[in-house]
Protein backbone atom coordinates (compact mmCIF):
# COMPACT_ATOMS: atom_id res chain seq x y z
CA UNK A 1 0.00 0.00 0.00
CA UNK A 2 3.04 2.28 0.09
CA UNK A 3 2.43 3.30 -3.52
CA UNK A 4 -0.47 5.40 -2.31
CA UNK A 5 0.62 8.86 -1.15
CA UNK A 6 -0.95 12.14 -0.21
CA UNK A 7 -4.47 13.49 0.09
CA UNK A 8 -6.77 14.27 -2.84
CA UNK A 9 -9.89 16.40 -2.38
CA UNK A 10 -12.64 17.10 -4.89
CA UNK A 11 -12.89 20.89 -5.20
CA UNK A 12 -16.49 21.48 -6.27
CA UNK A 13 -17.27 24.56 -8.31
CA UNK A 14 -20.48 26.54 -7.93
CA UNK A 15 -21.43 29.68 -9.89
CA UNK A 16 -17.95 29.97 -11.34
CA UNK A 17 -16.20 29.89 -7.97
CA UNK A 18 -14.82 27.27 -5.64
CA UNK A 19 -17.77 26.13 -3.53
CA UNK A 20 -17.60 26.62 0.26
CA UNK A 21 -17.23 22.84 0.69
CA UNK A 22 -14.14 22.94 -1.58
CA UNK A 23 -12.44 25.41 0.75
CA UNK A 24 -13.41 23.32 3.78
CA UNK A 25 -12.03 20.14 2.21
CA UNK A 26 -8.83 21.91 1.20
CA UNK A 27 -8.41 23.06 4.79
CA UNK A 28 -8.98 19.53 6.11
CA UNK A 29 -6.88 17.89 3.38
CA UNK A 30 -3.99 20.29 3.94
CA UNK A 31 -3.98 19.51 7.67
CA UNK A 32 -4.10 15.74 7.18
CA UNK A 33 -1.36 15.86 4.54
CA UNK A 34 0.86 17.87 6.89
CA UNK A 35 0.43 15.30 9.64
CA UNK A 36 1.46 12.62 7.16
CA UNK A 37 4.33 14.71 5.80
CA UNK A 38 2.78 14.38 2.35
CA UNK A 39 1.08 16.58 -0.22
CA UNK A 40 -2.49 17.78 -0.60
CA UNK A 41 -3.93 17.77 -4.12
CA UNK A 42 -7.21 19.03 -5.47
CA UNK A 43 -9.31 17.61 -8.29
CA UNK A 44 -10.95 20.39 -10.29
CA UNK A 45 -13.65 19.34 -12.74
CA UNK A 46 -15.78 21.51 -14.96
CA UNK A 47 -15.96 23.70 -18.03
CA UNK A 48 -13.59 26.68 -18.07
CA UNK A 49 -12.37 25.98 -14.55
CA UNK A 50 -8.60 25.99 -15.13
CA UNK A 51 -8.41 29.58 -13.86
CA UNK A 52 -9.67 28.40 -10.47
CA UNK A 53 -6.62 26.17 -9.95
CA UNK A 54 -4.65 29.11 -8.49
CA UNK A 55 -7.51 29.70 -6.11
CA UNK A 56 -7.34 26.08 -4.92
CA UNK A 57 -3.60 26.54 -4.36
CA UNK A 58 -4.24 29.74 -2.38
CA UNK A 59 -6.52 27.70 -0.12
CA UNK A 60 -4.05 24.89 0.53
CA UNK A 61 -3.51 22.63 -2.51
CA UNK A 62 0.07 21.70 -3.43
CA UNK A 63 -1.06 20.36 -6.75
CA UNK A 64 -4.28 20.67 -8.77
CA UNK A 65 -5.43 18.04 -11.26
CA UNK A 66 -7.73 19.71 -13.76
CA UNK A 67 -10.18 18.14 -16.17
CA UNK A 68 -11.50 21.11 -18.10
CA UNK A 69 -14.09 19.93 -20.59
CA UNK A 70 -17.36 21.38 -21.95
CA UNK A 71 -18.96 18.01 -21.14
CA UNK A 72 -18.41 18.77 -17.44
CA UNK A 73 -20.41 22.02 -17.50
CA UNK A 74 -22.98 20.51 -15.12
CA UNK A 75 -22.79 17.42 -12.95
CA UNK A 76 -23.42 14.19 -14.84
CA UNK A 77 -22.71 11.02 -12.81
CA UNK A 78 -21.07 8.91 -15.49
CA UNK A 79 -18.68 11.63 -16.68
CA UNK A 80 -17.64 12.88 -13.26
CA UNK A 81 -17.09 9.27 -12.25
CA UNK A 82 -14.83 8.62 -15.23
CA UNK A 83 -12.88 11.84 -14.66
CA UNK A 84 -12.37 11.24 -10.92
CA UNK A 85 -11.37 7.63 -11.57
CA UNK A 86 -8.75 8.86 -14.02
CA UNK A 87 -7.39 11.44 -11.58
CA UNK A 88 -7.11 8.83 -8.82
CA UNK A 89 -5.17 6.57 -11.16
CA UNK A 90 -2.83 9.42 -11.94
CA UNK A 91 -2.45 10.82 -8.40
CA UNK A 92 -2.56 7.51 -6.51
CA UNK A 93 -3.54 9.19 -3.23
CA UNK A 94 -3.88 7.33 0.05
CA UNK A 95 -6.81 9.52 1.11
CA UNK A 96 -9.66 10.83 -1.07
CA UNK A 97 -12.17 13.33 0.32
CA UNK A 98 -15.42 14.55 -1.23
CA UNK A 99 -18.16 16.75 0.22
CA UNK A 100 -21.42 15.31 1.54
CA UNK A 101 -23.19 17.38 -1.10
CA UNK A 102 -25.60 16.58 -3.87
CA UNK A 103 -22.58 15.65 -6.03
CA UNK A 104 -20.60 13.84 -3.34
CA UNK A 105 -23.55 11.74 -2.20
CA UNK A 106 -23.98 10.44 -5.74
CA UNK A 107 -20.37 10.24 -6.85
CA UNK A 108 -18.47 8.97 -3.81
CA UNK A 109 -20.07 5.53 -3.42
CA UNK A 110 -19.83 4.73 -7.14
CA UNK A 111 -16.23 5.86 -7.17
CA UNK A 112 -15.36 3.82 -4.07
CA UNK A 113 -16.89 0.67 -5.54
CA UNK A 114 -15.13 1.29 -8.85
CA UNK A 115 -11.83 1.52 -6.93
CA UNK A 116 -12.88 -1.52 -4.85
CA UNK A 117 -12.27 0.43 -1.68
CA UNK A 118 -14.06 1.35 1.54
CA UNK A 119 -15.88 4.63 2.17
CA UNK A 120 -17.38 6.51 5.11
CA UNK A 121 -20.12 8.98 4.18
CA UNK A 122 -21.00 12.17 6.06
CA UNK A 123 -17.94 12.40 8.31
CA UNK A 124 -17.92 15.15 10.90
CA UNK A 125 -14.39 14.51 12.16
CA UNK A 126 -11.23 13.30 10.44
CA UNK A 127 -7.81 12.73 11.96
CA UNK A 128 -4.68 10.67 11.53
CA UNK A 129 -3.95 7.97 14.11
CA UNK A 130 -0.41 8.84 15.22
CA UNK A 131 0.55 5.17 15.57
CA UNK A 132 -1.02 3.44 12.58
CA UNK A 133 -1.07 6.60 10.42
CA UNK A 134 -4.55 5.54 9.30
CA UNK A 135 -7.35 8.01 8.60
CA UNK A 136 -9.85 7.95 11.47
CA UNK A 137 -13.29 8.59 9.96
CA UNK A 138 -15.96 9.66 12.45
CA UNK A 139 -19.59 9.93 11.41
CA UNK A 140 -23.04 9.94 12.99
CA UNK A 141 -24.93 6.64 12.90
CA UNK A 142 -28.41 5.60 14.02
CA UNK A 143 -29.86 8.91 12.87
CA UNK A 144 -27.36 10.86 14.95
CA UNK A 145 -28.04 8.90 18.15
CA UNK A 146 -24.45 7.68 18.19
CA UNK A 147 -21.14 8.32 16.47
CA UNK A 148 -18.81 5.76 15.00
CA UNK A 149 -15.15 5.91 14.03
CA UNK A 150 -14.09 3.74 11.09
CA UNK A 151 -10.80 2.94 9.40
CA UNK A 152 -10.35 1.63 5.87
CA UNK A 153 -8.70 -1.68 5.16
CA UNK A 154 -8.16 -0.81 1.50
CA UNK A 155 -6.69 2.09 -0.51
CA UNK A 156 -7.43 4.81 -1.12
CA UNK A 157 -9.12 5.58 2.19
CA UNK A 158 -12.26 7.44 1.17
CA UNK A 159 -14.66 9.71 3.02
CA UNK A 160 -17.29 12.34 2.35
CA UNK A 161 -17.38 15.28 4.73
CA UNK A 162 -20.38 17.15 6.06
CA UNK A 163 -20.75 20.82 5.18
CA UNK A 164 -19.26 23.21 7.75
CA UNK A 165 -17.57 20.42 9.71
CA UNK A 166 -14.09 21.58 8.61
CA UNK A 167 -12.41 24.98 8.64
CA UNK A 168 -10.87 26.56 5.51
CA UNK A 169 -7.38 28.03 5.63
CA UNK A 170 -6.83 31.76 5.24
CA UNK A 171 -6.50 32.57 1.57
CA UNK A 172 -2.81 33.03 0.75
CA UNK A 173 -2.22 34.19 -2.80
CA UNK A 174 1.54 33.73 -2.43
CA UNK A 175 1.24 29.97 -1.95
CA UNK A 176 2.92 27.97 -4.71
CA UNK A 177 1.60 24.86 -6.40
CA UNK A 178 1.57 22.83 -9.54
CA UNK A 179 -1.29 22.58 -12.05
CA UNK A 180 -1.65 19.31 -13.96
CA UNK A 181 -4.09 19.06 -16.89
CA UNK A 182 -5.52 15.56 -17.08
CA UNK A 183 -6.84 14.11 -20.32
CA UNK A 184 -9.79 12.05 -19.12
CA UNK A 185 -10.92 10.90 -22.56
CA UNK A 186 -14.55 11.86 -21.91
CA UNK A 187 -17.15 11.41 -24.61
CA UNK A 188 -20.91 11.93 -24.74
CA UNK A 189 -21.35 8.19 -25.35
CA UNK A 190 -20.28 7.53 -21.74
CA UNK A 191 -23.47 9.16 -20.42
CA UNK A 192 -25.96 6.48 -19.41
CA UNK A 193 -27.90 8.56 -16.91
CA UNK A 194 -28.40 11.94 -18.53
CA UNK A 195 -29.68 15.08 -16.86
CA UNK A 196 -32.06 16.53 -19.43
CA UNK A 197 -33.63 19.30 -17.41
CA UNK A 198 -33.10 21.23 -14.18
CA UNK A 199 -35.93 22.77 -12.22
CA UNK A 200 -35.20 25.39 -9.55
CA UNK A 201 -37.65 25.71 -6.71
CA UNK A 202 -36.04 28.70 -5.18
CA UNK A 203 -37.15 30.36 -2.03
CA UNK A 204 -36.82 34.12 -1.79
CA UNK A 205 -34.58 35.78 0.73
CA UNK A 206 -31.52 34.59 2.58
CA UNK A 207 -30.34 31.06 1.89
CA UNK A 208 -30.72 28.67 4.82
CA UNK A 209 -27.07 27.66 4.69
CA UNK A 210 -25.97 31.29 5.02
CA UNK A 211 -28.52 32.52 7.57
CA UNK A 212 -27.37 33.70 10.98
CA UNK A 213 -30.89 33.33 12.36
CA UNK A 214 -33.25 30.50 11.42
CA UNK A 215 -36.86 30.11 12.48
CA UNK A 216 -37.76 26.44 12.13
CA UNK A 217 -41.28 25.03 12.09
CA UNK A 218 -42.33 21.44 12.70
CA UNK A 219 -45.40 19.25 12.51
CA UNK A 220 -46.59 20.96 15.70
CA UNK A 221 -47.35 24.24 13.90
CA UNK A 222 -50.27 22.41 12.32
CA UNK A 223 -50.32 23.71 8.75
CA UNK A 224 -49.03 26.11 6.12
CA UNK A 225 -50.74 29.20 7.64
CA UNK A 226 -48.51 29.18 10.70
CA UNK A 227 -45.46 29.43 8.48
CA UNK A 228 -46.60 32.98 7.60
CA UNK A 229 -46.01 33.93 11.22
CA UNK A 230 -42.64 32.19 11.14
CA UNK A 231 -41.73 34.12 8.00
CA UNK A 232 -42.65 37.36 9.68
CA UNK A 233 -40.42 36.55 12.64
CA UNK A 234 -37.58 35.57 10.31
CA UNK A 235 -37.96 38.84 8.44
CA UNK A 236 -37.81 40.92 11.60
CA UNK A 237 -34.64 39.08 12.63
CA UNK A 238 -33.05 39.19 9.17
CA UNK A 239 -33.09 35.40 9.03
CA UNK A 240 -34.54 32.51 7.08
CA UNK A 241 -37.31 29.96 7.60
CA UNK A 242 -36.52 26.25 7.83
CA UNK A 243 -38.52 23.16 8.73
CA UNK A 244 -38.39 19.63 10.01
CA UNK A 245 -39.36 16.90 7.56
CA UNK A 246 -43.13 16.60 8.12
CA UNK A 247 -44.01 20.13 6.91
CA UNK A 248 -41.97 19.40 3.75
CA UNK A 249 -43.52 15.98 3.22
CA UNK A 250 -46.98 17.53 3.65
CA UNK A 251 -46.15 20.31 1.15
CA UNK A 252 -46.72 23.08 3.70
CA UNK A 253 -43.30 24.37 2.62
CA UNK A 254 -40.89 23.43 -0.21
CA UNK A 255 -38.68 20.36 0.33
CA UNK A 256 -35.64 22.61 0.04
CA UNK A 257 -36.40 23.97 3.53
CA UNK A 258 -35.83 20.60 5.22
CA UNK A 259 -33.15 20.69 7.89
CA UNK A 260 -31.57 17.45 9.08
CA UNK A 261 -29.70 14.29 8.31
CA UNK A 262 -31.21 14.03 4.85
CA UNK A 263 -31.88 17.75 4.44
CA UNK A 264 -29.71 20.81 4.89
CA UNK A 265 -27.01 21.24 7.50
CA UNK A 266 -27.25 24.67 9.09
CA UNK A 267 -25.05 26.46 11.62
CA UNK A 268 -26.76 29.74 12.54
CA UNK A 269 -26.04 31.82 15.64
CA UNK A 270 -29.68 31.37 16.65
CA UNK A 271 -32.12 28.58 15.79
CA UNK A 272 -35.70 29.03 17.00
CA UNK A 273 -37.50 25.67 16.83
CA UNK A 274 -41.27 25.89 16.98
CA UNK A 275 -43.43 22.76 17.25
CA UNK A 276 -40.41 20.55 16.59
CA UNK A 277 -39.89 17.51 18.83
CA UNK A 278 -36.11 17.35 18.31
CA UNK A 279 -35.76 13.91 16.70
CA UNK A 280 -32.12 12.91 16.30
CA UNK A 281 -32.42 13.00 12.50
CA UNK A 282 -33.57 16.63 12.68
CA UNK A 283 -30.92 17.63 15.21
CA UNK A 284 -28.27 16.10 12.94
CA UNK A 285 -28.84 19.13 10.69
CA UNK A 286 -28.95 21.89 13.30
CA UNK A 287 -26.98 20.80 16.35
CA UNK A 288 -24.17 23.04 15.06
CA UNK A 289 -26.35 26.09 15.83
CA UNK A 290 -24.69 28.29 18.46
CA UNK A 291 -27.97 28.74 20.36
CA UNK A 292 -31.19 26.75 20.13
CA UNK A 293 -34.47 28.14 21.43
CA UNK A 294 -37.54 25.92 21.61
CA UNK A 295 -41.25 26.58 21.84
CA UNK A 296 -43.09 23.30 22.37
CA UNK A 297 -46.17 22.33 24.34
CA UNK A 298 -44.69 19.05 25.54
CA UNK A 299 -42.21 19.50 28.42
CA UNK A 300 -40.82 16.02 27.69
CA UNK A 301 -39.92 16.84 24.06
CA UNK A 302 -36.32 15.99 23.25
CA UNK A 303 -35.76 19.49 21.86
CA UNK A 304 -35.49 20.73 25.46
CA UNK A 305 -32.42 18.51 25.90
CA UNK A 306 -30.80 20.38 23.04
CA UNK A 307 -32.02 23.94 23.59
CA UNK A 308 -30.46 26.63 25.75
CA UNK A 309 -33.76 28.53 26.21
CA UNK A 310 -37.27 27.20 26.03
CA UNK A 311 -40.93 27.91 26.58
CA UNK A 312 -43.32 25.09 27.35
CA UNK A 313 -46.59 26.14 25.80
CA UNK A 314 -48.87 26.31 22.80
CA UNK A 315 -47.07 28.27 20.09
CA UNK A 316 -50.39 29.85 19.05
CA UNK A 317 -50.45 31.69 22.36
CA UNK A 318 -46.72 32.17 22.88
CA UNK A 319 -45.61 33.25 19.43
CA UNK A 320 -47.71 36.44 18.84
CA UNK A 321 -46.47 38.00 22.08
CA UNK A 322 -42.93 36.86 21.36
CA UNK A 323 -42.99 38.37 17.87
CA UNK A 324 -44.48 41.65 19.16
CA UNK A 325 -41.78 41.97 21.81
CA UNK A 326 -39.00 41.06 19.40
CA UNK A 327 -40.24 43.69 16.97
CA UNK A 328 -40.23 46.27 19.74
CA UNK A 329 -36.70 45.30 20.83
CA UNK A 330 -35.08 45.26 17.41
CA UNK A 331 -37.10 48.28 16.29
CA UNK A 332 -38.65 46.89 13.10
Amino acid sequence: MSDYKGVLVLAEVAQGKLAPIALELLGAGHGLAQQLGEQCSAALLGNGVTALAQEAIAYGADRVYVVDDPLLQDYQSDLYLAAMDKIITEASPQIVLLGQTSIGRDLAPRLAFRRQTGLSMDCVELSIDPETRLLLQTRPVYGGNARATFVSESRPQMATVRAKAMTPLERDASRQGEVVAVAAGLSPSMIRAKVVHRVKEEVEGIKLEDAQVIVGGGRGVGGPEAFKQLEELARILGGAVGASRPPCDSNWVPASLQIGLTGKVVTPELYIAIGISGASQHMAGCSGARNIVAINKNPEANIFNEASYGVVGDFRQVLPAFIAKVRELVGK
Partner: protein
Amino acid sequence: MNMIVCVKQVPDPEAPPASFQVDAASGRMVIAPSVNPVISPFDEQAVEAALRLKDAHGGKITVLSLGKDAVPHVIKKPLAMGADELILLQDDALEGGDSWSTAFALAHAIKKIGQYDLIFCGRQAADWDAGQVGSGIAELLGVPSVTLARKVEVSDGKAVVERVVPDGYEVVEVSLPALITVSNELGEPRYPTLRGIMATKKIEPIVWTAADLGVEASQCGVAGRRTRLLKLFKPVKEGRCQLIQADSPAEAGEKLALKLREAKLL
Protein backbone atom coordinates in the same frame (compact mmCIF):
# COMPACT_ATOMS: atom_id res chain seq x y z
CA MET B 1 -41.33 -5.21 -16.36
CA ASN B 2 -39.15 -6.97 -13.83
CA MET B 3 -38.26 -5.01 -10.74
CA ILE B 4 -36.15 -5.84 -7.73
CA VAL B 5 -36.36 -3.90 -4.47
CA CYS B 6 -33.69 -4.23 -1.77
CA VAL B 7 -35.07 -3.75 1.72
CA LYS B 8 -33.42 -3.88 5.10
CA GLN B 9 -34.98 -4.51 8.48
CA VAL B 10 -33.88 -1.97 11.10
CA PRO B 11 -34.88 -0.96 14.65
CA ASP B 12 -37.59 1.72 14.36
CA PRO B 13 -35.52 4.87 13.71
CA GLU B 14 -38.28 7.10 15.08
CA ALA B 15 -38.04 5.55 18.56
CA PRO B 16 -37.04 8.07 21.28
CA PRO B 17 -33.31 8.91 21.32
CA ALA B 18 -32.97 7.38 24.80
CA SER B 19 -33.73 3.93 23.34
CA PHE B 20 -30.42 3.99 21.47
CA GLN B 21 -27.50 3.49 23.84
CA VAL B 22 -23.89 2.47 23.47
CA ASP B 23 -22.47 -0.14 25.79
CA ALA B 24 -19.12 1.31 26.73
CA ALA B 25 -17.53 -2.04 27.60
CA SER B 26 -18.35 -3.87 24.36
CA GLY B 27 -18.58 -0.75 22.19
CA ARG B 28 -21.85 -1.97 20.70
CA MET B 29 -25.25 -0.43 20.11
CA VAL B 30 -27.81 -1.42 22.71
CA ILE B 31 -31.34 -0.91 21.44
CA ALA B 32 -34.15 -0.90 24.02
CA PRO B 33 -36.38 -4.00 23.73
CA SER B 34 -39.40 -1.71 23.30
CA VAL B 35 -38.12 -0.63 19.86
CA ASN B 36 -39.89 -2.57 17.12
CA PRO B 37 -38.15 -3.84 14.01
CA VAL B 38 -39.42 -2.15 10.83
CA ILE B 39 -38.56 -2.00 7.16
CA SER B 40 -36.16 0.92 6.81
CA PRO B 41 -38.48 3.84 5.83
CA PHE B 42 -36.76 4.80 2.56
CA ASP B 43 -36.92 1.13 1.52
CA GLU B 44 -40.71 1.17 1.98
CA GLN B 45 -40.68 4.16 -0.35
CA ALA B 46 -38.55 2.16 -2.78
CA VAL B 47 -41.25 -0.54 -2.69
CA GLU B 48 -43.85 2.16 -3.31
CA ALA B 49 -41.92 3.45 -6.34
CA ALA B 50 -41.91 -0.06 -7.82
CA LEU B 51 -45.61 -0.57 -7.04
CA ARG B 52 -46.54 2.65 -8.85
CA LEU B 53 -44.77 1.36 -11.97
CA LYS B 54 -46.46 -2.00 -11.59
CA ASP B 55 -49.84 -0.21 -11.32
CA ALA B 56 -49.10 1.65 -14.55
CA HIS B 57 -47.35 -1.01 -16.63
CA GLY B 58 -47.78 -4.36 -14.89
CA GLY B 59 -44.80 -6.53 -14.09
CA LYS B 60 -43.24 -8.45 -11.26
CA ILE B 61 -41.64 -7.15 -8.07
CA THR B 62 -39.07 -9.25 -6.24
CA VAL B 63 -38.05 -8.12 -2.77
CA LEU B 64 -34.53 -8.93 -1.64
CA SER B 65 -33.24 -8.67 1.91
CA LEU B 66 -30.02 -9.71 3.59
CA GLY B 67 -30.05 -10.46 7.31
CA LYS B 68 -30.54 -13.41 9.58
CA ASP B 69 -32.72 -11.62 12.07
CA ALA B 70 -35.60 -10.87 9.69
CA VAL B 71 -38.95 -11.10 11.52
CA PRO B 72 -41.50 -12.77 9.23
CA HIS B 73 -44.41 -10.33 9.64
CA VAL B 74 -42.05 -7.34 9.26
CA ILE B 75 -40.10 -8.50 6.24
CA LYS B 76 -43.30 -9.65 4.51
CA LYS B 77 -44.80 -6.16 4.59
CA PRO B 78 -43.71 -5.34 1.00
CA LEU B 79 -45.59 -8.44 -0.14
CA ALA B 80 -48.68 -7.27 1.70
CA MET B 81 -48.29 -3.92 -0.08
CA GLY B 82 -48.34 -5.69 -3.43
CA ALA B 83 -44.90 -7.13 -4.23
CA ASP B 84 -44.79 -10.63 -5.68
CA GLU B 85 -41.83 -12.51 -4.33
CA LEU B 86 -39.45 -12.41 -1.34
CA ILE B 87 -35.86 -13.62 -1.36
CA LEU B 88 -33.94 -13.70 1.91
CA LEU B 89 -30.16 -13.97 2.05
CA GLN B 90 -29.54 -15.76 5.31
CA ASP B 91 -26.20 -17.20 6.25
CA ASP B 92 -23.66 -16.63 9.02
CA ALA B 93 -21.05 -16.09 6.31
CA LEU B 94 -23.01 -13.04 5.06
CA GLU B 95 -23.38 -11.40 8.49
CA GLY B 96 -21.28 -8.64 10.04
CA GLY B 97 -20.42 -7.04 6.74
CA ASP B 98 -20.01 -3.40 5.78
CA SER B 99 -21.47 -1.60 2.77
CA TRP B 100 -18.95 -3.29 0.52
CA SER B 101 -19.71 -6.88 1.46
CA THR B 102 -23.46 -6.20 1.70
CA ALA B 103 -23.55 -4.75 -1.82
CA PHE B 104 -21.39 -7.62 -3.02
CA ALA B 105 -23.83 -10.25 -1.76
CA LEU B 106 -26.90 -8.36 -2.99
CA ALA B 107 -25.34 -7.85 -6.44
CA HIS B 108 -24.69 -11.58 -6.69
CA ALA B 109 -28.23 -12.38 -5.66
CA ILE B 110 -29.47 -10.00 -8.36
CA LYS B 111 -27.27 -11.75 -10.94
CA LYS B 112 -28.78 -15.03 -9.84
CA ILE B 113 -32.31 -13.60 -10.24
CA GLY B 114 -31.09 -12.72 -13.72
CA GLN B 115 -33.98 -10.83 -15.28
CA TYR B 116 -34.42 -7.22 -14.25
CA ASP B 117 -35.24 -3.85 -15.75
CA LEU B 118 -35.07 -1.75 -12.61
CA ILE B 119 -33.53 -2.21 -9.18
CA PHE B 120 -34.72 0.01 -6.34
CA CYS B 121 -32.97 0.79 -3.07
CA GLY B 122 -33.58 3.30 -0.32
CA ARG B 123 -31.30 6.34 -0.23
CA GLN B 124 -29.84 5.09 3.06
CA ALA B 125 -30.64 2.45 5.65
CA ALA B 126 -31.93 4.06 8.85
CA ASP B 127 -29.58 2.17 11.19
CA TRP B 128 -26.04 2.89 10.02
CA ASP B 129 -27.04 5.64 7.54
CA ALA B 130 -24.25 4.49 5.23
CA GLY B 131 -25.90 5.68 2.01
CA GLN B 132 -23.84 3.61 -0.41
CA VAL B 133 -25.18 0.09 -0.93
CA GLY B 134 -27.46 1.14 -3.82
CA SER B 135 -24.74 2.87 -5.84
CA GLY B 136 -22.40 -0.01 -4.91
CA ILE B 137 -24.75 -2.63 -6.35
CA ALA B 138 -25.05 -0.61 -9.56
CA GLU B 139 -21.29 -0.35 -9.91
CA LEU B 140 -20.76 -4.06 -9.23
CA LEU B 141 -23.41 -4.96 -11.80
CA GLY B 142 -22.13 -2.37 -14.28
CA VAL B 143 -25.51 -0.68 -14.64
CA PRO B 144 -26.20 3.07 -14.45
CA SER B 145 -27.71 4.59 -11.33
CA VAL B 146 -29.81 7.57 -10.41
CA THR B 147 -29.85 8.55 -6.75
CA LEU B 148 -32.39 10.40 -4.58
CA ALA B 149 -35.44 9.85 -6.75
CA ARG B 150 -38.72 11.59 -5.95
CA LYS B 151 -40.55 10.32 -9.05
CA VAL B 152 -39.92 7.47 -11.48
CA GLU B 153 -41.62 6.86 -14.80
CA VAL B 154 -40.83 4.44 -17.59
CA SER B 155 -41.35 4.95 -21.32
CA ASP B 156 -39.66 3.91 -24.55
CA GLY B 157 -37.33 1.51 -22.80
CA LYS B 158 -35.89 4.09 -20.45
CA ALA B 159 -36.65 5.47 -17.03
CA VAL B 160 -37.30 9.15 -16.44
CA VAL B 161 -36.39 10.07 -12.91
CA GLU B 162 -36.83 13.25 -10.92
CA ARG B 163 -33.79 13.53 -8.70
CA VAL B 164 -33.88 15.75 -5.60
CA VAL B 165 -31.18 18.43 -5.48
CA PRO B 166 -30.79 21.14 -2.80
CA ASP B 167 -32.58 23.87 -4.76
CA GLY B 168 -35.14 21.85 -6.68
CA TYR B 169 -34.87 18.78 -8.84
CA GLU B 170 -33.28 17.39 -11.99
CA VAL B 171 -34.94 15.27 -14.63
CA VAL B 172 -32.66 12.35 -15.50
CA GLU B 173 -33.16 9.91 -18.35
CA VAL B 174 -31.49 6.56 -17.89
CA SER B 175 -31.25 3.48 -20.06
CA LEU B 176 -32.50 0.17 -18.63
CA PRO B 177 -31.52 -1.85 -16.73
CA ALA B 178 -30.73 0.72 -14.07
CA LEU B 179 -30.64 1.15 -10.33
CA ILE B 180 -32.56 3.91 -8.58
CA THR B 181 -32.31 5.03 -4.96
CA VAL B 182 -35.45 6.55 -3.50
CA SER B 183 -35.87 9.53 -1.17
CA ASN B 184 -38.80 10.51 1.07
CA GLU B 185 -39.93 13.21 -1.37
CA LEU B 186 -41.49 10.32 -3.35
CA GLY B 187 -44.40 10.48 -0.90
CA GLU B 188 -46.09 8.15 1.56
CA PRO B 189 -45.88 4.42 0.93
CA ARG B 190 -49.27 2.72 0.72
CA TYR B 191 -50.69 0.69 3.58
CA PRO B 192 -50.97 -3.06 3.16
CA THR B 193 -54.53 -4.12 2.48
CA LEU B 194 -56.21 -6.81 4.56
CA ARG B 195 -56.35 -8.95 1.42
CA GLY B 196 -52.67 -8.34 0.89
CA ILE B 197 -51.86 -9.40 4.42
CA MET B 198 -53.93 -12.59 4.07
CA ALA B 199 -52.30 -13.40 0.73
CA THR B 200 -48.79 -13.14 2.15
CA LYS B 201 -49.54 -15.91 4.62
CA LYS B 202 -49.34 -18.29 1.70
CA ILE B 203 -46.15 -16.86 0.21
CA GLU B 204 -43.06 -18.63 1.52
CA PRO B 205 -39.85 -16.63 1.24
CA ILE B 206 -37.07 -18.14 -0.86
CA VAL B 207 -33.93 -18.46 1.26
CA TRP B 208 -30.47 -18.35 -0.29
CA THR B 209 -27.13 -18.92 1.41
CA ALA B 210 -23.64 -17.77 0.39
CA ALA B 211 -23.18 -21.11 -1.39
CA ASP B 212 -26.37 -20.52 -3.41
CA LEU B 213 -24.91 -17.21 -4.57
CA GLY B 214 -21.66 -18.85 -5.56
CA VAL B 215 -19.61 -16.18 -3.83
CA GLU B 216 -16.24 -16.69 -2.21
CA ALA B 217 -16.23 -16.54 1.57
CA SER B 218 -13.37 -14.02 1.47
CA GLN B 219 -15.65 -11.45 -0.23
CA CYS B 220 -18.61 -11.85 2.14
CA GLY B 221 -19.66 -10.67 5.56
CA VAL B 222 -16.87 -9.88 7.99
CA ALA B 223 -14.16 -11.27 5.70
CA GLY B 224 -15.17 -9.07 2.78
CA ARG B 225 -15.24 -5.76 4.64
CA ARG B 226 -13.31 -2.78 3.36
CA THR B 227 -13.90 -0.74 6.54
CA ARG B 228 -13.53 -1.61 10.20
CA LEU B 229 -15.44 -0.08 13.13
CA LEU B 230 -12.96 1.15 15.72
CA LYS B 231 -15.14 2.94 18.18
CA LEU B 232 -18.79 3.72 18.91
CA PHE B 233 -19.87 6.46 21.30
CA LYS B 234 -22.71 8.80 22.27
CA PRO B 235 -22.10 12.46 21.41
CA VAL B 236 -21.88 14.55 24.58
CA LYS B 237 -24.71 16.99 25.21
CA GLU B 238 -24.61 19.92 27.54
CA GLY B 239 -28.35 19.80 28.06
CA ARG B 240 -28.86 22.89 30.21
CA CYS B 241 -32.09 24.42 29.03
CA GLN B 242 -33.38 27.53 30.81
CA LEU B 243 -37.15 27.24 30.78
CA ILE B 244 -39.02 30.53 30.92
CA GLN B 245 -41.51 30.66 33.79
CA ALA B 246 -44.53 32.93 33.47
CA ASP B 247 -48.18 33.28 34.49
CA SER B 248 -49.50 33.10 30.93
CA PRO B 249 -48.23 31.87 27.57
CA ALA B 250 -48.21 35.43 26.23
CA GLU B 251 -46.10 36.59 29.13
CA ALA B 252 -43.74 33.67 28.49
CA GLY B 253 -43.37 34.84 24.90
CA GLU B 254 -42.46 38.36 26.02
CA LYS B 255 -40.06 37.11 28.66
CA LEU B 256 -38.37 34.87 26.11
CA ALA B 257 -37.72 37.86 23.88
CA LEU B 258 -36.28 39.81 26.81
CA LYS B 259 -34.13 36.87 27.79
CA LEU B 260 -32.70 36.57 24.27
CA ARG B 261 -32.02 40.30 24.27
CA GLU B 262 -30.19 39.98 27.59
CA ALA B 263 -28.12 37.14 26.13
CA LYS B 264 -27.33 39.43 23.15
CA LEU B 265 -28.99 37.01 20.73
CA LEU B 266 -31.34 39.65 19.37
